[in-house]
């Protein structure tokens, strides 16, 4: 079962969902609940969950096209082969320790950044845009690696998430020795 969750306002995600015409549940997470629950900091993020509700592969970066895979420096073919192996049951289940090793711990700064996002989101819905912008800025400064906050708030703030502000943000980020995507090893 595939479950896709748009960490978006419904109107921002609508045209993409309608064009895809999916047969699986396609959900809307405008408040970034998945960010809070799963410590997600960017999209796309995929999580494998087995029949018992156990996480067998935590937050990973995955694309369905090789072009997308190049953004994250991963082989989409290898990722899909691994996924098919898991779905078909031909992969040995990982140990709990192996799964835990792949989980990014939650920092206090990230947690607080999400609280500021949550506050900003509520203020934005109330039409208090200046106050919301202030909260989004605080969140972005607290957790500069959390692009759900830094980039995810751009549509709310009237900024193009693919425009000059984002290009400047990611150029600065990469220039400081960071990577934009942190995929798990394909194993």
């Amino acid at each position: 079962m595939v479950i896709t969750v748009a960490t978006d306002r419904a109107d921002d995600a609508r045209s993409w969902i309608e064009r895809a015409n999916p047969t699986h549940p396609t959900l809307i997470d405008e408040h970034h609940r998945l960010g809070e629950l799963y410590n997600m900091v960017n999209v796309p993020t995929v999580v494998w969950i087995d029949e018992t509700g156990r996480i067998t592969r935590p937050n990973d970066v995955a694309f369905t096209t090789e072009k997308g895979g190049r953004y994250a420096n991963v082989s989409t073919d290898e990722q899909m082969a691994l996924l098919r192996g898991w779905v078909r049951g031909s992969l040995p289940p990982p140990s709990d320790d192996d799964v835990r090793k792949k989980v990014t711990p939650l920092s206090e700064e990230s947690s607080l950044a999400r609280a500021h996002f949550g506050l900003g989101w509520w203020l934005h819905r109330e039409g208090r845009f200046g106050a919301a912008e202030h909260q989004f800025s605080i969140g972005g400064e607290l957790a500069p690696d959390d692009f759900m906050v830094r980039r995810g708030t751009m549509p709310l703030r009237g900024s193009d998430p693919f425009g000059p502000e984002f290009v400047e943000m990611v150029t600065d980020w990469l220039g400081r020795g960071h990577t934009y995507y942190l995929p798990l090893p394909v194993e």
Partner: protein
Amino acid sequence: MASLVLLDVGKPTEVEATIDVSGVWINSADVEAALGWELKPEGLCRDAICIPVEGRPGLMSDGRMNLEGLADLLGRPLAHSPEEGVAYMGPPLDLFNQTIRTLEAPDFTLPDLEGQLHSLSEHRGSKVLLVAWASW
């Protein structure tokens, strides 16, 4: 006395707040209404859990609780905008630590485009590929 909207992971409750040099203070009754934690002789309690409040300087005063002290007691992040009269308390940090300990995928309930709610737990018994994406 001022009005404060206290957001419990987004769920709003309007409470009365007193603001002074030592911070924002809310009544214990409002703490229960907004967050579900009740002040009892043994401490701040919810379900089977009670957290002692004695020995925490600055937390309690005349039946009121300091908002920042309360967030610290509960291990939850707090974002507060005094000028807007609203504060957001996020989920406890330990909630994610619990996820790491148990590896149990946190359940969630979210709407689709038609507003129909769906929960992860509905699909127990099947492997689930959870994909978070965005237009941005």
